[in-house]
């Protein structure tokens, strides 16, 4: 019996060793990169990112340390070419802009204990002054930790909780560049049928699909956007096959919401086109690529780090748009017609100037009901709770 028990124990220990080996590497990577590449995603020139939200150059309360230590907690690997990659580009940009020391850990699960262990280590052993958490599931542990460490700033991407002193949240109006990418896609489709590989039926995803569709209709009134749900954020085989299914059903352009590049590879194999997401994924399927709505977190990260360093930080619920360049459109493929690009830039300018936004009426839903009347614009609350599809989308906004 004892022998058997020992063997079981050995198995368990060996397993743990392997799992630990899987995570252990990250500390080495957390060392500051010698030469961070600036995040130069935006086709338009970057603004000088030195403008703090509330510039108080004479702030007298000097920070405790000489320089700010900013720590990033990532849900995925920085090489995912998608969500986490974009955040890491932002980290590199902010490090170069501010001279702050940045640290990061990849692949931190959305489990309170795991997240807490990483953050406590950052604060107690690395002297972190500001923690950026980049996944929705970190929200509750971040709220708790913000209470326990009042001297540390906590900034949470994609969440909605905050406090008055040291815990804020931030996100971007991705629907704006999605609209622009839809304009390009609408101009490129020949079958007037676009396939959309959709993740989960939540407001963020619905908003993206609707904005994309409205954009496509602007350049192509006959276009239909066919939505297939995968109920995954990341399953390349299923997402690639879903793109194939949409292409087989008659689509000749694929758009998507997940992190994987598989839909693009499927589109390229079928001789179809592809609007990627998160980052410029053109290298994965260069013939299929049209453009991509992308994240550009760097300027925001730099602003927060500077505010923390200057002692001027105050938490907010930030939902920035293209005017702040937290979201933008990646460069278009060479064969997107010049007049389409001109039109995209025209709308881009209107969005940035604040004279027009995507969900401006008249907008009707799939059943023909007017959701936004002519001349009106949907407010943020309605956008954040969006639960319908606009006319022109084929598929269910509330799949069983």
């Amino acid at each position, binding site marked *: 019996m004892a022998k058997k028990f020992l*063997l*079981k124990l050995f198995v368990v220990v060996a397993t743990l060793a392997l799992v630990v080996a899987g995570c252990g590497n990250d500390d080495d990577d957390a060392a500051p990169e010698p030469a961070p590449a600036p995040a130069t995603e935006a086709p338009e020139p970057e603004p000088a990112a030195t403008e703090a939200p509330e510039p108080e150059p004479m702030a007298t309360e000097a920070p405790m340390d000489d320089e700010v230590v900013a720590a990033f907690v990532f849900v995925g690997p920085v090489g995912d070419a998608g969500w986490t990659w974009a955040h890491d580009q932002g980290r590199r940009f902010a490090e170069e802009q501010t001279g702050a020391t940045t640290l990061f850990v990849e692949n931190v699960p959305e489990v309170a204990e795991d997240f807490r262990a990483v953050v406590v280590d950052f604060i107690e052993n690395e002297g972190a002054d500001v923690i950026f958490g980049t996944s929705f599931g970190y929200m509750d542990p971040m709220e708790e930790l913000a209470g326990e460490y009042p001297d540390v700033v906590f900034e949470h991407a994609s969440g909605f909780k905050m406090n008055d002193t040291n815990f804020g949240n931030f996100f971007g109006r991705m629907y704006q560049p999605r609209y622009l990418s839809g304009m390009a896609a609408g101009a490129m489709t020949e079958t007037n049928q676009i396939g959309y590989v959709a993740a989960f039926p939540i407001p963020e995803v619905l908003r993206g699909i609707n904005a994309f569709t409205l954009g496509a209709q602007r350049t192509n009134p006959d276009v239909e956007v066919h939505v297939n749900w995968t109920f995954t954020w990341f399953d390349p085989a299923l997402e690639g096959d879903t793109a194939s299914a949409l292409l087989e059903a008659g689509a000749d352009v694929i758009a998507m919401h997940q992190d994987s590049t598989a839909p693009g590879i499927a589109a390229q194999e079928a001789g179809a086109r592809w609007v990627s997401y998160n980052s410029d994924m053109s290298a994965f399927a260069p013939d299929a690529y049209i453009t991509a709505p992308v994240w550009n977190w760097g300027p925001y990260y730099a602003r927060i780090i500077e505010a923390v360093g200057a002692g001027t930080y105050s938490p907010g619920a930030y939902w920035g748009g293209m005017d702040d360049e937290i979201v933008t459109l990646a460069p278009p493929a060479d064969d997107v017609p010049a007049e389409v690009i001109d039109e995209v830039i025209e709308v881009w300018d209107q969005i940035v100037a604040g004279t027009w936004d995507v969900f401006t009426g008249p907008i009707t839903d799939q059943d023909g009901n007017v959701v936004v009347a002519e001349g009106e614009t949907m407010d943020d609350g309605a956008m954040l709770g969006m639960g319908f599809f606009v006319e022109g989308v084929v598929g269910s906004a509330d799949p069983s």
Partner: protein
Amino acid sequence: MSEAALIGLFVATVQFGTLVFLAALGELIAERAGVLNLGVEGMMTMGAVSGFMVGLETGSPWAAFFAAAAVGSLVGGFHALVSVVLGADQVVSGLALTIGGLGLAAYVGRNVVGERPETQFTDLGIAGLADIPWIGEIFFDQPPVVYLTVLLGLAVWFVLARTRLGLAIRAVGESAATTDTAGHSVMALRSVAVMVGGAFAGAAGSFLSLYMAPGWTEGMVAGRGWIAVALVIFGAWRPGRLALGALLFGFTLALQPRLQTFDIEVLGLDVSSISPALLGVLPFVLTVVVLVIISWRHRHRPSVAPAALGLPYRREER
């Protein structure tokens, strides 16, 4: 529903079927030798990452495929060492393989996540046959792994059913003590079966990272290793039934993204409204149904599962 959509459904059926068949075939060999290996998911994941990395290095999909098989068999060797040689609990060791394999693969592949593939398998349009309408595209314009897997299925059937080695493997799965008495090495037979099974799982993993979703990211096997384990039960531990089951499971996997595009009604039900999430559990539901049918049909006879499945063997211990 268009012709292209229907053909696409069957093309994907064959590919997903190949994926789970190859992995399940390996598990079948191990289980027929009496060793349950719940590490298929881990072995496939290790195969996916190592195959992708070797593909990046060498530019050859075949080098990647066989490297993945070798890695799969090494990982399987760990299970053989722990559960066959040392006689530890097969369930615990197998689960350790899955959990550990996923973690180790994440570590090994940390620098190639999201990397662009250098090479991948391409469809093999078989001259003359690939041009036949319907049939050609579905059966004769697939990547070479599909045909290799069919051959492997025949080979496994032949070895198990028609050779002395196969007899010994089946015997050790029914009664290790009897096989031992007959002069065969239980340890050697079982270890080899587990390692060959691991090679199949690793190769299946590389089919994923070199063809179905070229590239590597953590969790890309996404539960298909468990579908392979279920498939072995569904196939009642027989290669022929396994092949049929693989086509059925492959069909449900291919249906999952496609059903939403199908504008048809079955018995008054709009099929496009069936949840794709629900379709994802269909293979497991089918497996349970088959288990119930099997146990009902065999209620007066011994189970169809290898009698010694899951039982470690130590000489002079009972």
